[in-house]
């Protein structure tokens, strides 16, 4: 072909073309800089690799002398946790843990807390380590040099693992499913912090208050109670069913949770609400919750409910109910007053 002849090359077959230009020197040059780049990349990776090769030792260096730890427990994740003595520098990753620690007198041992810990007022003076929703500020935690990090069920397993990998001791206090669990948490916290006596005493007092309520509500009629956890959608409010502490509270306070047929947190349709017609409505309230007794009663379709008609709609501090701490007992007493005003106050 005249054309190909003019340009000085032979028509090549498919395979030959894959090797690139027919001019061998060009191939070397072209490949040359790519190989150089790859080698540079590999060299950098090798350098970085060797640098981090012995990094694994760093965190483990702290455990160089394996002396027998004096105290050992199994935490809420089934992990074995050991301390040489009561924890003196504690970081709390949940508001409930903070409340528990202060309640048993371990407040002074708290060196760090999550930003949502706002109770009691003294908690505000403890250094905040930021949010636990999202990225955990491990640097801030490590810089406080805690000997114990107290986690809760809201702490993701990945976050627990990350802190563990940094050589920290973590204990996870699980959410209680009934009051026995709360007392156990309090006592465990007491053992961890060297306040076993106060913890035990507090548990006893709390138990007495709980029993005082439970005894009186044991034999009476149980009004139908609806607990609204979130009312952003008035046609399908969020409520708490079987398996939640809220149901335990309602039960002990002498009421019957209309949502007992559901499990966990679930939405209740307005239709179901009208059909079950609760006699008492308790709704979670807080600084960021816009719902008021009036606004709830004014919702379309809600006016017909017995609870609204008879004025038995009550707000309850969401932090009392949602945080698995000592204020659960306050919540119980409040619930009892709402559900059986004739028996309590």
């Amino acid at each position, binding site marked *: 072909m005249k054309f190909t002849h003019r340009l000085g090359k032979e028509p090549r077959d498919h395979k030959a073309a894959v090797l690139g230009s027919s001019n061998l020197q060009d191939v070397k040059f072209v490949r040359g800089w*790519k190989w150089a780049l790859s080698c540079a990349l590999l060299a950098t*990776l090798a*350098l*970085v690799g*060797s*640098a*981090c090769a012995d*990094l*694994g030792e*760093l*965190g483990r260096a702290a455990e160089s002398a394996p002396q027998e730890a004096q105290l050992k427990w199994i935490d809420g994740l089934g992990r074995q946790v050991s301390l040489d003595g009561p924890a003196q520098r504690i970081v709390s990753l949940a508001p409930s843990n903070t409340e528990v620690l202060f309640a048993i007198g371990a407040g002074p041992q708290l060196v760090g807390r999550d*930003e949502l810990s706002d109770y009691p007022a003294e908690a505000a003076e403890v*250094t*905040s*380590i*930021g*949010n636990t*929703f*999202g*990225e*955990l*500020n*491990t*640097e*801030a935690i*490590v*810089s406080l*040099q805690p000997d114990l990090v107290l986690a809760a*069920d*809201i702490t*993701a*397993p*990945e*976050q627990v*693992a*990350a*802190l563990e*990998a*940094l*050589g920290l001791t973590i204990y996870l206090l699980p959410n209680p499913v009934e009051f026995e669990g709360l007392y156990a948490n309090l006592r465990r916290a007491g053992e961890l912090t060297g306040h076993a006596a106060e913890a035990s005493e507090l548990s006893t007092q709390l138990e007495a208050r709980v029993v005082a309520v439970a005894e009186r509500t044991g034999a009476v009629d149980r009004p139908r109670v609806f607990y609204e956890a979130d009312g952003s959608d008035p046609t399908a409010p969020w409520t708490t069913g079987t398996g939640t502490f809220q149901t335990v509270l309602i039960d002990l306070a002498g009421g019957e949770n209309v949502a007992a047929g559901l499990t*966990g*947190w679930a*939405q209740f349709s307005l239709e179901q609400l009208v059909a079950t017609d609760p006699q008492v409505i308790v709704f979670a309230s807080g600084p960021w919750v816009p719902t008021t007794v009036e606004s709830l009663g004014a919702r379309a379709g809600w006016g017909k409910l017995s609870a609204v008609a008879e004025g038995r709609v009550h707000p309850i501090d969401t932090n009392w109910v949602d945080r698995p701490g000592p204020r659960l007992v306050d919540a119980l007493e409040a619930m009892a007053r709402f559900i059986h005003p004739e028996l309590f106050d």
Partner: protein
Amino acid sequence: MILSRYLPWVWTGAALLAAALASAAVGAVAIPPGVVARMLLDRLPLFEIKGDWPAAFATILYEIRLPNLALTALTGMALGGSGAAFQALFRNPLADPYVIGIASGAGLGAVLAMALRWPSNLLGMAAVPAAGFIGALITVGVVYRLASVGKTTPVTTLILAGVAVSSFATAVTTLILLLSTSELHRAVTWMVGGFSLGGWEPVLASLPYLAIALGVLVLLGRPLDVLQFGDEQASQLGLDVDRLKLVVVITASLAAATAVAFSGIIAFVGLVVPHLTRLLWGPSYRRLVPLAALGGASFLLLADIVARSAMPPRELPVGVVTSVIGAPFFLYLLARAKGQLRAW
């Protein structure tokens, strides 16, 4: 003229180095830059520097910041490189790594793993990233199959199928979350920016996939340029268009899926960085893919620095920061290119 050839690399390399050093120096605990430099030198083989810094610094730098730096840089590289590749594939400036379902698929996989409580049983801490990774790849596979018409895969059907499947995956994810509200906290944490799983495991786990995927994409620069003239012209110029598209989809998805698995769904990097690179250094994908990868690393490192230092001791999700920086920046790019599309 010789200088102008290497100028983009010099600038991009310098930016990356600066961002990396800044990332190592910034954090909740103030470590003076001089100390940082000495601590880094000490870690390199052949260097031995007297360690006069507190143990906490060592833990913080070596075990928290360096792995975070490495993972962030790798994630940025993956997003920048795959973003450029997808823009080449779709010949569309709005394409980003998530357009064919990677983000929604990864979200579905991860949330499913959380709902099934996997870390307690199988695979340990790798369960959620692994599930996310697999979810992403399965979703891309489904989208590709749906979009294929015989042997060809027109890019418009690819986008449409991607949108449809993504919506479906997102809906299912929401449903699963509603049924397991106990995992809500964890799921949202993962989605806005992954977990700082910490340690070098995520870095080492991502490395092989990213090395292969980005390595191939960088080498495919020339065929991607040819593809810009349309499927028909590319085929008439001798390119096996269908095979090229398949390879690009596979490798770009691999890179993006790896990034999402460990770092959650980070927006805008895959969209803005290739554009910026194109504005600065021209449209040829031979340079664009590697430069966008390196630029993506710098961009994400910068966003990470802002995330960690904007509202101490809070650590903002890095995906939020990239959106906050990225959206106005993208609008600025649009304004500059308005009416001309000169840079495209």
